[in-house]
């Protein structure tokens, strides 16, 4: 049975937070172009889940993917490089902030079409079952995506075929600007599981240990019962939907209320209270994480002008095929 490692949880959450803060600075100062979707405030959800997964369990994140990608094991350098558009990026600079696939860390990469990664994750679950592997696939989606037909079709399909898929719904209360209460017909999205004869649960997603425990319970259920599971993780994004969001759709009071639920601040308090870590240990960890993220960014920035040639880019449109060499008779 996997055990929760509090120091590792804090370290991963800090890395995610500092990565996002560094990313935000780079976008605001115009060093990075395009757009990005920050998950500051949702760290417990990414870290708790990924710590509960086995190395060979697969994940299909959303466009808000940095926290999951880091927690699954990808290097900040390869992620920064992706956003700098260089050949050292996870997708060689072709994907950008929303596309960070990593085969070596069993991360299929995200779809930037809300809710479209979910059927792909079912395909991963199908592959695992087809190959008789005892691993699972995680389909991450948000409250916004929960209204997509693709998500409903996928839940039905995984249920009738008993595919090892964890439907992991990060409910951060807003699909872009739309409040979940104005978009979703049920109070708890996890109750949708009932319609597909699945187990479902809604949990506090701002407590990393709680996310870890609930994720582990769901993962073990999927592996033992060979059935899918729907976990709804309640959280809140501190920043806007994407780069230029002024957040006119929510009040300062609401934001303050949720800032008090900051998963990192509260977890540090808890670690001190329970004497799991000392103040010095925490400060040192913070310092180390800040400088590690900084170094990775600097390294990626230095190499950022090394982009793919147009020839290399064009050659990636099609994969090569070798049917010419095979005799069919």
């Amino acid at each position, binding site marked *: 049975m996997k055990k929760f490692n509090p120091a590792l949880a804090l370290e991963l959450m800090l890395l995610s937070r500092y990565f996002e803060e560094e990313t935000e600075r780079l976008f605001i100062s115009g060093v990075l172009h395009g757009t990005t979707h920050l998950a500051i405030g949702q760290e417990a959800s990414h870290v708790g889940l990924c710590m509960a997964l086995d190395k060979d369990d697969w994940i299909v994140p959303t466009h808000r993917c940095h926290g999951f990608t880091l927690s699954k094991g990808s290097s900040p350098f390869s992620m920064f490089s992706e956003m700098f558009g260089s050949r050292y990026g996870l997708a060689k600079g072709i994907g950008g902030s929303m596309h960070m696939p990593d085969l070596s860390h069993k991360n299929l990469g995200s779809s930037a079409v809300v809710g479209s990664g979910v059927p*792909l994750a079912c395909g*991963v679950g199908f592959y695992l079952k087809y190959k008789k592997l005892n691993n699972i696939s995680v389909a991450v989606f948000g409250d916004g995506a929960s209204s997509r037909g693709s998500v409903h*079709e996928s839940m039905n399909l995984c249920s009738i075929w008993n595919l090892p898929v964890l439907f992991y719904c990060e409910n951060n209360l807003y699909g872009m600007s739309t409040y979940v209460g104005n978009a979703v017909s049920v109070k708890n999205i996890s109750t949708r599981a009932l319609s597909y004869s699945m187990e479902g649960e809604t949990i506090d997603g701002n407590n990393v240990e709680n996310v870890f425990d609930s994720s582990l319970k769901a993962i073990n259920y999927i592996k033992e019962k060979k059935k899918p599971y729907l976990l709804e993780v309640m959280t809140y994004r501190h920043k806007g939907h994407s780069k230029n969001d002024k957040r006119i759709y929510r009040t300062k009071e609401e934001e303050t209320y949720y800032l008090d639920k900051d998963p990192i601040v509260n977890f540090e308090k808890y670690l001190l209270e329970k004497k799991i870590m000392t103040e010095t240990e925490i400060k040192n960890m913070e310092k180390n994480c800040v400088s590690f993220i900084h170094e990775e960014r600097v390294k990626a920035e230095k190499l950022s002008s090394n982009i793919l040639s147009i020839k290399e880019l064009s050659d990636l449109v099609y994969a090569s095929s070798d049917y010419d060499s095979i005799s069919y008779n």
Partner: protein
Amino acid sequence: MTYREAIRQALFDEMAFDDNVFLIGEDIGLYGGCFKVTEGLIKSFPTRVLDTPVSEEAFTGLAVGSAMLGLRPVVEVMYADFYTLIIDPLVNHASKTHFMSGGMFSCPLVIRLPEGSGTGHGPQHTQSPQAVFFNEMGLKIFAPSNVSDAYYLLRMAIRDNNPVLFFENKILYDSVGKIDKKSNVSLKAKVYFFGKDPNLLIISYSAAVQTSLKVAERLKNKGISSAVIDLRVLKPLDVKTINQYVKKIGNVVIIQDAGKNLAMSSHILSAINSDKKAFDSLEKPVLVLGGIDTPVPFSKELEKNIRADEENCYKKIINEFFK
């Protein structure tokens, strides 16, 4: 052997060759598929022929995800018209997988699409939408016109490491032929000659090739030599072969089983226009023959106007080039 049986044989042979190949779609198991193409395959491969709920987007997306990890799914979309339901997993995912992941993942996926009119199924079960996909990058489009090509092209499609749209013309399912064991495994267009020193080049694909071959035979009987190009693969379009013969022949006609707006003619014309020598070789503007430019009507008499008609094509060619 029929066209239907050739496709079934290709599926069987590839499933026997590679355990990663599986079939997925609606009513393709015991029922054998809407057009009985997969009939009996579930007996040979009970765990690899998967009947799905009516959830095209989910099961196509599932196929894409599994292909990214190395399985080789063959998806049956009951009627090609339902391509609208698989567009997102196909266009935004399958066809961009290799590119978007910097080559980390590929998507060896086949989508079988029964297309074409003449069956009385009305406007939403009879379209020939091959050209709709021409503008999308990262995928291939196969459209076999005969038994042998149906067999070999499908086997190639399954071994291709890219998504392939495999269009089967419903009118051809019962057509009979042989698998030509000497036929080259190739994505190139095939050229048929009717007499020496052809005066006319007919370019065609899918079932309209059969019409084109009959027209060419009639022209030959009238002393007019011609060559017929069966494109076989619409994407990548074999521009080289097209222009090689346009340069030699100069009188060019395109015959297709759909109206100009839906069919491949504009893409073929663009290929000819892009080659100065080919363009300069044209004796006259290219003649485009085929169906009227409307969606497919139900009425038996009206529906006939959607397909290229042998008699009409013959007369128009004589009028245009040989009067």
